C-alpha cells in the first residue's frame, strides 16, 4: 500500500505547501510563486494517475505493447499553459500595484486601502452634515 500510494501522498504534501505559501505570504509575487507550486503539484497528481507500471510514452511503435495514459498528458499540457497565462497576468497586475502603491506587501496595501476608505467615509459624513 505504501508503494502504491506514496506518490499521491507526496503530491498532497506539495499541494498543501503551495497552498500554504499562497495563503500565508504577504508578498504578492511570492503568492504567485505559491500558486505556481500548487498547480504544478496538481499536474504531478494527474500524471501519476496516468502512469502504468512497465508502460512507455504513448508514441506508437510496433515493438511496444503497453502505453501510459495519453489523456492525462493532454489535459495537463492544457493546464500548464493555463498556469503560465495566469502567472503572466498576475505578475502584470503586481507590477501595476507596485507602481500605484510603491509596495507589494499585502499588509501595507491593506493599511493604505483602509486609510483611503476611512478618508472617503469622513468626507461623505462631512458632506452629509453640510446639508
Amino acid at each position, binding site marked *: 500500500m505504501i508503494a502504491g500510494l506514496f506518490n499521491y501522498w507526496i503530491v498532497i504534501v506539495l499541494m498543501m505547501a503551495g*497552498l500554504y505559501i*499562497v495563503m500565508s505570504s504577504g508578498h*504578492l509575487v511570492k*503568492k504567485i510563486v505559491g*500558486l505556481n507550486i*500548487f*498547480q504544478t503539484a*496538481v499536474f504531478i*497528481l*494527474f500524471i501519476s*494517475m496516468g502512469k502504468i507500471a512497465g508502460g512507455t510514452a504513448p508514441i506508437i511503435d510496433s515493438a511496444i505493447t503497453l502505453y501510459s495514459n495519453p*489523456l*492525462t498528458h493532454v*489535459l495537463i499540457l*492544457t*493546464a500548464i499553459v*493555463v498556469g503560465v*497565462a*495566469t502567472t503572466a*497576468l*498576475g505578475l502584470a*497586475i*503586481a507590477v*501595476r*500595484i507596485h507602481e*500605484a*502603491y510603491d509596495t507589494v506587501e499585502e499588509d501595507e*496595501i491593506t493599511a493604505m*486601502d483602509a486609510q*483611503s476608505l476611512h478618508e*472617503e*467615509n469622513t468626507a*461623505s459624513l462631512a*458632506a*452629509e452634515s453640510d*446639508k
Partner: protein
Amino acid sequence: MIEQLPAIQLLLTLLAAPICSMLRNGDHAWRLATAATWLSTVVAIMLLIQVWDGGVISYQMGGWPPPWGIEVRIDELNALVLLLVTLFGSLVITALRESLRGVMRHQRQSLYYTTFLLCFAALIGITITADAFNVFVFLEVSSLSTYALIARGRDRRALTASFRYLIMGTIGATFILIAIGFLYMVTGTLNMQDLSERLPAHWDNRVIQASLAFFTVGIALKVAVFPLHYWLPNAYTYAPKATTAFLAATATKVSLYVMIRFLFDVYGIEFAFEKMQLSTILVPLSIAGILIASLVAIFQNDAKRLLAWSSVAQLSYMVLGLALLNASGITAAISHMFNHAMMKAGLFLALAAMIYRVNSSKLHDLAGIGRTMPLTTGAFAVMGVGLIGVPMTAGFVSKWYLISGTLDKGWLPLAALLIVSSLMAVVYIGKIIDVAYFKPAPPQHADVREAPLSMLIPCWIFALLTIYFGLDTRITAGLAGRVAQSYLGVS
C-alpha cells in the same frame, strides 16, 4: 446550417475577438463587438426555441462521438443561461461605447472590447459544453479576461481587488481541476452524461466524496457563496463602471449554472444532497449570507459598493433555493438567476450612467439626481423596486417561489427571515432612492444633464424587461419549473 448553431453560437464572438484586437479604431471595435454579440443573442433565441419542448441538442466537436471527443449539449437549462448571457451581455456592450469614450485611447478601447468578447465567448463556452475538463478551460478564459477588465478601474484599489480575485479565483479553479481529476481517476471519462451514468457505482468511494468537496469549495469561490464572497464587493466596486454591470449579470450566474450542472447532473441529487448532505452546509451558509450581506449593504455610503453587497445577498438566495431541493426552491433559484442578472445589470448600468455624469458613485454625490437625470433615475427606481420584490416585477416572481419553497419544507422561521431580508432590501434601495429624489443637488452638479441615449435606452430596456418578466413568467419560472421537475422527477 441549423445543426451547426451550437458551434456558431460560440464562434461569433470567439472569432470577433482576435479581429477586434487588430483594429486600431475604438469605434470600429465597438461596432464589431455589438454586431457579434447581438447576432449571438439571435442564435441563443433560436436555440432556446429549438429546445423549448424539452428537446436536447447535441453537437460533436471535431466530429468525434462522446466520450472520446468533446460534446456540446444544450437543454432547457443552459438555453436559458445562454439567453441570459447573450441578451444582457449585448445590452451592456451596446451601452459601453459612451462610457469608454474619452477615458481610453483608441487602441486601448479595442483591446478592452476584445477582452469583453473573450469573456463573453468563454461564458458561452462554459454554458454549452458537456465536457468536465472543457468547463475548466473556458472558466479560465473567462476568469483571466475578468481579472483584466476589473484591473482597468480608475481607482488604484481596482488593482488590488483584481489581484485578490486572481488569487482566489485561481485557487478555486485549481480545486475544480482537482475535483475533475478525481472524477476521471475513478470513472475514466470526462463527458458529463457518461460521468453521471458511471458515478452511482462509486458512491462509496472516498475519492468521489473528496471530489465533491473540492468541487463545492472551488465553485463556491467563483459563485461567491457567503464566506467565500471576500473578493466580490471590492471587485464590483472598483471595476470600471459599465464593466460591473456585465460581470454582475453574467460571470457569477454562469458559475452558479456550473454548480447546478455538476451537483444535479454529474454528481446527482441523490449523491450530493442525500448521501453527502450538502444541504446541511449550504442552507445555514446561505441564510447567514443573506442576512449579513443585506445588513452590510444598508450601511454603505457608496452606491456601487451597496449594490455589490446586495449581489452577495441575492446570490445566497439562489444557493438557498437550490439547497431547499424541492420544486419551488429550484424554480426560484433558476428564475432568480435570470431575473437577478437582468435587474442587477440594469441597476449597475443606470448607476454607470449617473457616474458618467457626476463622476462619483458616493451617495452624497448622487443627491438630487432624480431631478437632474429623471429618466435614468426612473429606470433605476423601477429595477430597484424589482430587486426588492414588489409584485408585478420580476423580483417578486422568484421570491414568491423561494418563500413557497421554504413553506413547502415547513420552515416557517426561514420564510419569516426571507421577508425580513426583503425589508432590508427596501432599506438599502430606499437609501439610494431617497438621496436621489429627496435631497437637494449639490451646487456643483447643477449642470448635470440626462445620460446619453446609447446608455439610456439599454437602461430602459432592462427596466421594461423587469416589468415584462414580472407579468409573463413563461420563459423564466415556466422553464425553470420544468427543469426542476425533470431533476426531481428522475431522482
